[in-house]
């Protein structure tokens, strides 16, 4: 038996380690261990006023605070039966685009691409790939600007609250962003054309891909979840069918559906919703000559690059509409709604950059939180990643130790694990 241990894997969000073993007949064990302490986030919101929830839950993660903020807000709005306006919906869509763009630009280029080109240190990446790095930074910066204009701050949004938005986004800032957008889209296309020539390992692992599903759009939130074993569930069915496994000394609760692990994230979304990508995103994906569905988890990185392009293109009409809304003299009332506090139960399922994110709350009649459950994308895909690693280990057994560890880390990073989220 050969064991492989990798402590403190860097270039991921949050701290994790890997423990694996290769036994007889290519039978392998693989386990991801979180090095984060448990913050008990679901307990922290209990007995607190609902307005504090989005503030507290955004602190689950510094790279994807927007999705936790919005998942809390949308769940609470379901309880209070708040029907949001089209104006609020557009601003939230823009915020989600911003979140995906900056999170993907960071992960796909600065955390995973170095594995593609065999670099350990991002200061070397900046030196050896100056043009690509500059493009990736500019794309990321664009996402951050948009997040700041609408959310009030890049890390941990302030402006996005139950009932809508406190402050009307500054029109000049929005116009500046709109002016930048076509150039940034071109930059993303240019970056894509430069990096697509790098090839990845051929590695296939059969997985079930789960994502939100729509016939019309490439969805951020919704009621229908599609599993690639041809199962369609509603949000409530999803919450009932999936199982969170608690083990005595495990900080991350693995998630299974009918005892099976499943994949979530960019590759799942493209596998399930390829038809709803924008024309430019489709062209880029087609240029990769990857067949749909792709069972190669390393393709998750390319899927993220394609989603950046998809986001930038689909933002154009959204920002146009927001611009028109900002000319409305009553816009402040349309983006911040009055509501009555109620007791009840509400939930939200949305597509975080790393995949399906589920929040669920119960309030009492004073708006105090009496129940909370949060299931994050990384907690969901961790069991699937471990399955892939078990299939991967026998394939790399002939390589030396250093190379093996490099490849294992690359596979782990290709999933874009966010251990802070998973260990919340």
């Amino acid at each position, binding site marked *: 038996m050969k064991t492989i241990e990798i*402590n*403190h894997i*860097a*270039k991921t*969000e*949050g*701290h994790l380690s890997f423990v694996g073993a290769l036994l007889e007949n290519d039978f392998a064990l693989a386990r991801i261990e979180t*090095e*984060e*302490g*448990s*913050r*008990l*986030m*679901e*307990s*922290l919101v*209990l007995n*607190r*006023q609902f307005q*504090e929830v989005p*503030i*507290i839950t955004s*602190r*689950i*993660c*510094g*790279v994807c*605070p927007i999705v936790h903020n919005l998942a809390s807000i949308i769940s609470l709005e379901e309880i209070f039966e708040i029907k949001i306006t089209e104006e609020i919906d557009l601003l939230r869509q823009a915020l989600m685009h911003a979140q995906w763009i900056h999170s993907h630009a*960071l992960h796909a280029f*600065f*955390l995973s691409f170095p594995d593609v080109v065999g670099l*350990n*240190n*991002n*200061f070397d990446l*900046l030196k050896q790939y100056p043009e690509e790095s500059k493009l990736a*930074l500019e794309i*990321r*910066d664009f996402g*951050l600007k948009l997040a700041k204009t609408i959310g*009030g*701050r*890049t*890390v*941990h949004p*302030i*402006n996005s*609250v139950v009932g809508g938005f*406190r*402050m009307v986004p500054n029109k000049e800032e929005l116009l500046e962003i709109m002016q930048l957008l076509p150039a940034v889209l071109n930059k993303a296309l240019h970056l894509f054309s430069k990096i697509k020539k790098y090839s990845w390992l051929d590695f296939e692992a059969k997985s079930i891909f789960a994502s939100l599903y729509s016939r019309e759009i490439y969805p951020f939130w919704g009621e229908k979840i599609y599993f690639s074993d041809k199962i369609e569930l509603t949000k409530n069915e999803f919450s009932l069918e999936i199982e969170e496994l*608690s083990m*005595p*000394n495990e*900080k991350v*609760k693995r998630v299974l559906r009918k005892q099976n692990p499943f994949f979530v994230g960019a590759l799942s979304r493209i596998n399930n919703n390829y038809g709803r990508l924008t024309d430019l995103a489709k062209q880029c994906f087609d240029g990769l000559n990857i067949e749909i569905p792709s069972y190669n988890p390393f393709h998750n990185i390319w899927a993220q690059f394609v989603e950046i392009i998809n986001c930038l293109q689909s933002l154009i009409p959204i920002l146009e509409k927001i611009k028109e809304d900002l000319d409305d003299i009553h816009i402040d009332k349309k983006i911040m709604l009055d509501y009555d506090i109620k007791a009840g139960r509400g939930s939200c399922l949305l597509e975080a950059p790393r995949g399906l994110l589920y929040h669920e709350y119960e309030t009492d009649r004073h708006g105090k939180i009496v129940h909370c459950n949060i299931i994050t994308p990384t907690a969901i895909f961790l069991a699937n990643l471990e399955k892939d690693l078990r299939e991967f280990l026998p394939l790399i057994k002939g390589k030396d130790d250093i190379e093996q560890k490099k490849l294992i*880390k690359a596979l782990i990073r290709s999933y874009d694990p966010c251990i*802070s989220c998973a*260990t919340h």
Partner: protein
Amino acid sequence: MTNKKLKIGLFSLTGCEGCYFSLLDNAIGFLRLAEDVEIKRFRLFEESEIAVDEFFEIAFVEGSPLTSSNIDFLRELRVQCAYLVALGSCAEMGGIYHLKNYQDKDKALNYVYGQNSDLENFDVLSLKELVKIDYAIPGCPINAQNFIDFVRQIIVGNPKKVWPNEPVCFECISKNYECRLQKGEICLGPITQGGCEAICLKSKQGCYGCRGLVASAEVDNLLKVLKKNHSDQEIAEKLEIFGIKKQINSNKYEND
């Protein structure tokens, strides 16, 4: 000043890493700074681990010490650096996760993990309750410019706080933002350390005090104003979130 670049280590314990993302969000400022100092062990940037005999002129630590290995690491790091700087609310004053300290922590663990869990479940402490801290960069998240300015001060041999000893109100008024207190809302701006550009007030959110108490904060005066419109419990909950309540209580203790 010598030509040798200052060696700076960037570390994190348990947390959201939002302070480091704030830093990366000011990518140009951060990369310029990286030309003038030697930035090491930044795990979002490189694959490497701290060596036992390694020494840093400044070590920044973000997050909360929530595991025994977090605590061991912090104690070891203390002797491997000249200046140890707490980065952000969690490290400086307990931060959001220390809300657990206001709950029954066993119940909290059971609620999240069930009865069988034997996970470590410490009280959530700020770094200075475990080791000596030389400086702190406040905020949840930090203001990246505060970080850059602070390091630049160290480069010229003059480490000091680079934000004014003024409350958040100072910046809020100068930016002409609407006063939340005058609207009858809870705002901790008058007692909270400024330097954040009153960013929450820009979005019409009252200050939650994430940057901690400003020097000579007039806490009792603010409480008097708040009590006109709000119950003691409401006020206490607001003071708890990032750790100002804990600071107020420990100040009282020191004064007694």
